[in-house]
Structure formats: C-alpha cells, structure tokens
C-alpha cells in the first residue's frame, strides 16, 4: 500500500501525488496534467510520518545491499520513505535521510530502481 508520493522539482518546490490517481500514460497528456498539480509546503519532512525511516538511493553509495534482505529486518510499525532521483545525471542530496544505499552494482534507471523496491516490499 503506497501512502503518498512527493515530487521535488528543481525550482518550484514540492508537489504531492495521491496513490489512487490514474496518471496519463503518454507524455503529451502527462505534460498537460503537470501544470494543475497542487504544490505543498516545504520542507518535505513535515509531511512524513513521525515513525518514518528515510532511505536515499544512489549508485554512488558505498553501501551495496540486497533490497529484500534490507527491508526484511525492519519492524512492521516503521514507515519507510524512499528517495529516488529522477534526473539523467547527478545524485540526490538531502540532509533528512537516515540511510543511503545502493541496491545494484550496475547503474539503474529510476523506474527499474522503483520496481525493485516495490517487489521487495
């Protein structure tokens, strides 16, 4: 069950996506929808649960883990938060992360990274 999705933009802040939304599947329609999205207040941590565990993901991290083993040690009352970069180059930075891991020894597309996380949970 996905609780919430937040998208942090380069210049314009953060917007929220409800999990039950049906996002348009083609790029032209998706671009049309983006201008209507509701922008929420920064910093992003105010929208996260108090029992959240924030994990950043990057190919450049020195901590290479098996994602299934990584999530299996978590207790059930923990709310995981995953931070994934959706750009072509660079890495995600944030001072609010509790952990910073790499889940493959190969560079991954963001979509594939998210797929691996969803499969592990």
């Amino acid at each position, binding site marked *: 069950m996905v609780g919430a999705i937040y998208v942090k933009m380069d210049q314009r802040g953060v917007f929220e996506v409800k999990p039950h939304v049906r996002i348009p*599947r*083609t*790029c*032209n*329609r998706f*671009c*049309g929808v983006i*201008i209507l999205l509701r922008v929420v207040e920064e910093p992003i941590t105010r929208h996260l649960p108090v029992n959240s565990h924030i994990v950043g993901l990057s190919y450049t991290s020195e901590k*290479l883990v*098996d994602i*299934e083993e990584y999530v299996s040690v978590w207790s059930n009352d923990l709310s995981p938060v995953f931070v994934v970069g959706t750009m*072509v*180059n660079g890495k995600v930075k944030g001072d609010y992360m509790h952990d910073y891991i790499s*889940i*493959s*020894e*190969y*560079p*991954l*597309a963001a*979509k*594939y990274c998210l*797929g*691996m996380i969803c*499969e592990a949970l």
Partner: protein
Amino acid sequence: MTRPFGVKGGRKRKHAEPKYDAHDEEEEEETQPKKTVVEVEHNQEEEEETPAPAPEDDGLSGIPIAPSANNTNKPNVIFILEKASLEVAKVGKTYQLLNSDDHANFLRKNNKNPGDYRPDITHQSLLSILDSPLNKAGRLRSVYIRTEKGVLIEVKPFVRIPRTFKRFAGVMLELLQKLSISAVGKREKLLRTIKNPVTQYLPINSRKIGLSYSSEKLVDMDDYVSTVTSNMDLVFVVGAMAHGKIETDYTEDYVAISGYPLSAAYCITRITGALERKWKIL
C-alpha cells in the same frame, strides 16, 4: 550513463519540426525547455548517414549469437514482445510512426481506433528489458518484437534504445523503411527485421512462457522460475498492446504473475527481478 544514439538523418529531423509547430501553441510553450535540451543533445550526436547495405540473410541466421562466448554455458533469457503497434503511414507529406496522441484525427479518418496505436508501450517495455541488471550482467540473449502486422524485429541486447519517445519513433520509422539499423561506422546490426516464424531463432533447449492477466494459472514469479531446471534457457512472451491478449502457438505455458492487471513494462520488471534473484545478480 552515456547518452543514447540520436536519430540518424538530419533531413528527417528537419521534417519533424514543422509537424511539431503545427501543435497547440500552449504545448509548445510548456515543452520549450525540453525541446532545447533535446536539440542540444541531437546536435552533439549528429552523424553522417551511411548508406545501409542491402539486407542479406547470413548463413548463421538460425543460430542465435550470444553477446559473449563466456556466457554460452549459462542459461539466458529471451523476450518476445507480441502485438506491438509499430505501423508507418503517410500523414500529410511525410511518413510517420502512428501513435494515438499525434495521429488521432488521421486514425479516425481511416476508420481505425486511436487507442490501439500505442508504440509507447513497446518503447517502455524495451527500456525495462534493456535497463535491467540482468541485461547488464550479460544474461539477455535477444529481444524479438512482433508487430500487429506480423513484422518480426530482432533487437540486440547491447543496443542503446533512444530514451525519449520522439527519437524512438524516428528510429523505428527508419527501421521499418530500411529493414535494419546499424551501429555508426560499423556493419553490425543493432536492430533488424527478420523472417518469421520466431521459433527458428529460439534455442532448442528452451522453455517458452506466455504472460497474460487472463490466464487461469496464477503463479508467484520467484517460485515459478525456481521450478525451471538450471541449464534451460527461458523465453518470455509479453503482449505490448493496450488491450486484448496474446495467442501464440509456440508457447508451452501460459501464466499470470499478478492478481491485478499489469502494464507490460512492470510485468517485465517482475520477470527480470525474479531472474536476477534466481541467478544472484545484484
């Protein structure tokens, strides 16, 4: 990650521009920064178009070529995308790959359902396969695409498919018109159309599995791949269309891997994820 190859042929690029301008002014304004970035990338990757040699059937066409000799003893995986909507038509003055967003009026005028023309599904599926650690570890043998019209396309695992749909459409247009796409400066074919049936290219010792939400056999993908013997190559047949189901006579098994309907790209992600766990690829 390095950038993918751009669309070959500056002439096609120039032709594409006026059609883009014909769209809504609003959309043009929104996507202006993206367009600028795309143009910069394209200029960097502009290459002189080498005349494509006539497609020839080499004597080894029946024998799959593994990307590396070291992998010939390990089991590999092959993906077949069925019912892909890759169709070329003359829209206005140019030939284009038909899709539901740009050519809705043209398709309705020709008594066709725009919702059936979704080459973006094929694009997303290909990216899912080629981006997987399974492919980067060298365990993907090949990808075959069979279109709704029956054209069969072979995709090499080391190809770098364009990551934006517009460029992908340009490459596919060139492929369907010239029958193959070569690496720049080399005779190696990255994408090519091949003869039907697809079964002649599959290894003899392989298990062919069709995927469909409508199958009565619901399996856990991890459990399912663990039942396959370790030295057997796997062939997965996934439908790359928005509606309907695939019906092929060469599949030996027919499974559903989720209780929910899945997009083709996510279905492939689930398959590659299960194989990565089975073959200990991290």
